[in-house]
């Protein structure tokens, strides 16, 4: 075991989790200890060295704080806020829609739902950091929508790192269970208040979407510079279930996010769109894996990245169509825009098809800012810096427009200049952009 693996186990021992989570914790710890530490030769970590984790001496768990200077994506929407991994009641809504509860407050029925699904949707044999999340599970959020019901309002789950999180760890866990014909929209928002926070956040979201249920999900990862974030979203889709997912990540020292969606019931539909915007010396790594196990499933997946300065991005998108998954429709597209000579991207879209009657397409491109388009904008009096922001915006606008929540769209538009590493006024025209 590496030092970090040892340290992680010690951290688990400092926690005080309820009895009914102990089995999962023990299984997680066991898996974590038994799994060899990824190296450059480990397929899924080839381009993303975990060295930053090994280099930091994580002293303990993050401390609670009841203030954090961030802008909410939607100040009106009900939200659960965690600061440095600790629930922050002062920042959270007093009332939450029925079906939304912290693990710590879960009643007997809710505990039963959690025990039934938690750790069951994710495959922790294939996802090392899911094993860690199991070992570290203490608190978390359950969104449970019963059959035929609709979650009364979009729920925001916000994870904030503040300066108290220096060289500490945080574990974030979300479980979403939609019974048949249920519907819900959930926004996960990760933020940090300062660029110099060097903590480690391990986050895991599991989602069960039963037959004919509809799930909308947005995951916005905006922790800055020095933070390390390893996260995953793992989903099972039942018969004719629908999911519309959107994710955006600004880079940090190490930011790795996995999406795993399993088409378990026939005729499910998945739309998954992602945007990554690393700059400075940041890294963003998205690994997505869609498993079509049954017939008549549909997947439409589009990721776009704008990589600036000396930043690096990794996109690995796999769609695996099993022999039984006839009549699958699957599309995977990844486009990258490099805005500096030192920016890099490793992109690998993979289609593995073992059924013969399917329609599939995939493609990846890497390009640079179009000099002719820049000249055209500048010839109208627009500065080069602003022209670059406009072209970058144009590159991802289509995906922002399709984000499932209007509040997410407008929040991101407002911060676009900042996201692209440019002073705010440069993106002022884009704020109200409707196209």
């Amino acid at each position, binding site marked *: 075991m590496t030092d970090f693996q040892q340290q992680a186990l010690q951290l688990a021992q400092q926690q005080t989790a309820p009895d009914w989570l102990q089995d999962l914790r023990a299984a997680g710890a066991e898996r974590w200890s038994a799994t060899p530490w990824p190296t450059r030769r480990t397929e899924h970590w080839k381009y993303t060295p975990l060295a930053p984790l090994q280099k930091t001496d994580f002293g303990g768990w993050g401390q609670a704080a009841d203030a954090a200077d961030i802008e909410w994506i939607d100040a009106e929407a009900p939200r659960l806020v965690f600061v440095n991994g600790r629930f922050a009641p002062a920042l959270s809504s007093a009332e939450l829609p029925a079906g939304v509860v912290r693990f710590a407050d879960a009643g007997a029925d809710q505990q039963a739902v959690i025990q039934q699904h938690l750790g069951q949707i994710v495959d922790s044999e294939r996802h090392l950091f899911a094993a860690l999340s199991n070992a570290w599970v203490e608190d978390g959020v359950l969104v449970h929508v019963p059959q035929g019901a609709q979650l009364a309002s979009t729920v925001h789950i916000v994870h904030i790192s503040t300066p108290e999180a220096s060289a500490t760890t945080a574990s974030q866990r979300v479980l979403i269970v939609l019974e048949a014909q249920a519907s819900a929209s959930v926004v996960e928002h990760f933020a940090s208040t300062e660029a110099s926070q060097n903590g480690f956040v391990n986050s895991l979201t599991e989602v069960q979407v039963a037959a004919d249920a509809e799930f909308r999900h947005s995951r916005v990862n905006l922790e800055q510079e020095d933070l390390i974030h390893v996260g995953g979203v793992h989903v099972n889709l039942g018969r004719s279930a629908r999911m519309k997912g959107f994710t955006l990540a600004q880079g940090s020292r190490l930011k790795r996010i996995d999406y795993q969606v399993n088409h378990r019931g026939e005729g499910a539909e998945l739309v998954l769109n992602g945007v990554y915007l690393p700059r400075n010396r940041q890294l963003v790594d998205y690994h997505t894996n869609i498993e079509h196990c049954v017939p008549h499933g549909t997947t439409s997946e589009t990721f776009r990245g704008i990589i600036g300065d000396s930043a690096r991005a990794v996109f690995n998108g796999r769609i695996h169509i099993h022999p039984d998954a006839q009549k699958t429709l699957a599309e995977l597209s990844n486009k990258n825009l490099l805005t500096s000579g030192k920016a890099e991207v490793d992109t690998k879209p993979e289609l593995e098809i073992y059924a013969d009657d399917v329609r599939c397409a995939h493609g990846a491109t890497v390009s640079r800012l179009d000099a002719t388009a820049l000249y055209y904008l500048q010839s109208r009096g627009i500065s080069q810096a602003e022209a670059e922001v406009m072209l970058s915006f144009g590159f*991802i606008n289509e995906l922002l427009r399709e984000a499932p929540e209007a509040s997410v769209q407008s929040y991101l538009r407002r911060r676009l200049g900042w996201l692209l590493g440019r002073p705010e006024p440069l993106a002022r025209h884009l704020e109200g952009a409707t*196209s």
Partner: protein
Amino acid sequence: MLTINNLSANVGETQILRDLSLTVKAGEVHAIMGPNGAGKSTLGNVLTGREGFEVTGGTVDFDGKDLLALDTEERAREGIFLAFQYPVEIPGVSNMEFLKAALDAKRAHQGLEEMSSVEFMKLARETCRQVRMDQSFLKRGVNEGFSGGEKKRNEILQMMLLQPRLCILDETDSGLDIDALQSVSDGVNTMRTPERGFIVVTHYQRLLDYIEPDFVHVLAQGRIVKSGTKELARELEAHGYGWLDSEVA
């Protein structure tokens, strides 16, 4: 307002403009005609400071300023406008955002306040009507999927919004149907005032029937080889450029 003196310019290693001289005074319309490859578009690119077009000699004075010392965007804010021969498509950036960004940049340069969105929308819609362009084009991506004629109307729309001092139209009439040609010419004629100058690059007499030039020049092999009045355009239309070889030599 514009004095070009012995201007020479290269694209890469190749010299394209050779000692070109031209003076445009406020209120004048100059037509430039000439064979393909003569350097007409190059002149527009050089005057707007496009990267890759290297000035190797000569001067350009614009309202008392050394134009060649300015960046592309500064030239635009000072009042130079080029209607592109091939307007550029920019998917994802709405025409509206683009137009507002351009107008705001110009107003900031003039020390004026940014226009409010409401005021701007009104102005943009009104200008759309003037060039007979449907307002839905404001919401679309810049020139994205526009037909040839729609792109050219969009150029004139930008010109009318920005109210430049010197307008350079590079083959804005090529490929237009009569209706679009009419809109484009109407646009230019509305803008024709004593304070404003025009350089109109065209191959066709047809446009000059609508926009009557004060002067007509023939540009060949990188320089102005003949200048005259609008009658020169008729001669060119009738006889082509074949005579140039003997005359220039």
